[in-house]
């Protein structure tokens, strides 16, 4: 059994993105997705801080300190890219113009709820950033995350236990074990890591799975 690595998970997400989509990638594994889309295949990446048509990290010595992404990393702008201000940038998100948003998460529920911004109801100083806007506003929300927490608890759940980011928003989940669609009746397994058994996947998942 070979669970997928983080780069493999990112590559798997990238494989599902058609040319021409406008895509916003969250911090963490989602950010890696861009590395797996060849520049010749035109996918247009958006960053909340007003960058549309974001390119890869700059070559060493070519960093422009004025050009960062929402994760505060230095990036570049592709030919055809544009800069906008924050309200216009979020108009793209909230107005349903972003074809796809890929986020990490603490939990995803079988009804599409996502929890990815606070780990308890009494989190001291929670920080939401643009997650709620993205989750509620993008045309499609996909999540890429480890299937379980470090101590083995399933991150796929019947209902989220952490504070929600958005209700019923997630359409597809990519984990290190499987790719799952969320339909009206819950998680549907689209693909599994090579050698993983249905039983093992079920054992690792705290929700019903449809195969």
């Amino acid at each position: 059994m070979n669970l997928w690595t983080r780069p493999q998970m990112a590559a798997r997400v990238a494989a599902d993105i058609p040319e021409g989509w406008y895509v916003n990638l969250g911090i963490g594994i989602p950010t890696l997705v861009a590395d797996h889309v060849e520049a010749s295949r035109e996918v247009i990446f958006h960053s909340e801080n007003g960058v549309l048509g974001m390119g890869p990290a700059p070559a060493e010595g070519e960093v422009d300190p004025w050009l960062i992404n929402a994760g505060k990393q230095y990036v570049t702008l592709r030919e055809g890219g544009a800069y906008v201000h924050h309200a216009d940038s979020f108009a793209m998100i909230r107005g349903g113009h972003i074809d796809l948003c890929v986020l990490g998460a603490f939990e995803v529920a079988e009804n599409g709820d996502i929890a990815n911004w606070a780990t308890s109801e009494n989190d001291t100083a929670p920080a939401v950033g643009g997650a709620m806007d993205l989750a509620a506003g993008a045309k499609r929300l996909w999540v890429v995350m480890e299937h379980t927490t470090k101590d083995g608890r399933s991150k796929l759940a019947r209902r989220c236990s952490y504070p929600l980011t958005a209700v019923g928003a997630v359409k597809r989940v990519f984990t290190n074990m499987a790719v799952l669609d969320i339909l009206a009746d819950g998680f549907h397994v689209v693909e599994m890591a090579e050698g993983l058994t249905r039983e093992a996947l079920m054992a690792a998942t705290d929700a019903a799975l449809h195969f």
Partner: protein
Amino acid sequence: MIDKIVRSMAEAMAGIADGSTVLLGGFGSVGQPDALLDGLIEQGAKDLVVVANNAGTGRTGLALLMELGRVRRIICSYPRSSGSVVFEELYRAGRLELEIVPQGTLAERMRAAGAGVGGFYTPTGVGTKLAEGKEVREIDGRMMILETALHGDVALVEAWNADRWGNLTYNKSGRNFNAVMATAGRMTIVQAYHIVPLGSLDPEAIVTPGIFVNRVIHVPGVTA
């Protein structure tokens, strides 16, 4: 490769359905997508709701579309002008529904549609007959009325420069409603005076990023 440039007007107009709400850019004669309007007349969609600042003049363009009986309803701020003969005939004959919206509210309602805002409170129109039937509430000590987002199934836009990603710039006061409507159309179709290579537009000066644009047709026009 993304290429939003279409080669024919038929391609530009493909799929515009009867009953569509059509957002029509321009203010006065500046920035009107005349070629797209001709294309729409040719294309045949009917029972349309047209959103435009004015209600057409003479007997061409929007006026012709209305004269052909293809417009059920017009939403505008200023329908009446010296040449708006077709509008006035149809309106007087009861063959055209009219919704008058203050010009700024009209722009803001489409901006709201483009930005995912469902509705908003504005002081414009409070206490006037255009506020009749609208929810009123006091915010920050001021009476305001609720206005809702105005989406288009289609937006017809005139731009100055366009590239294959659909990035647009406009020319002077030709920007007007065009840049707002581009964000509010589910299908935004652009006629552009100039098609320029990707990367030739200054990323600091692109007014409508391509994310809001579906199709671009090159219409060089007589003014250049």
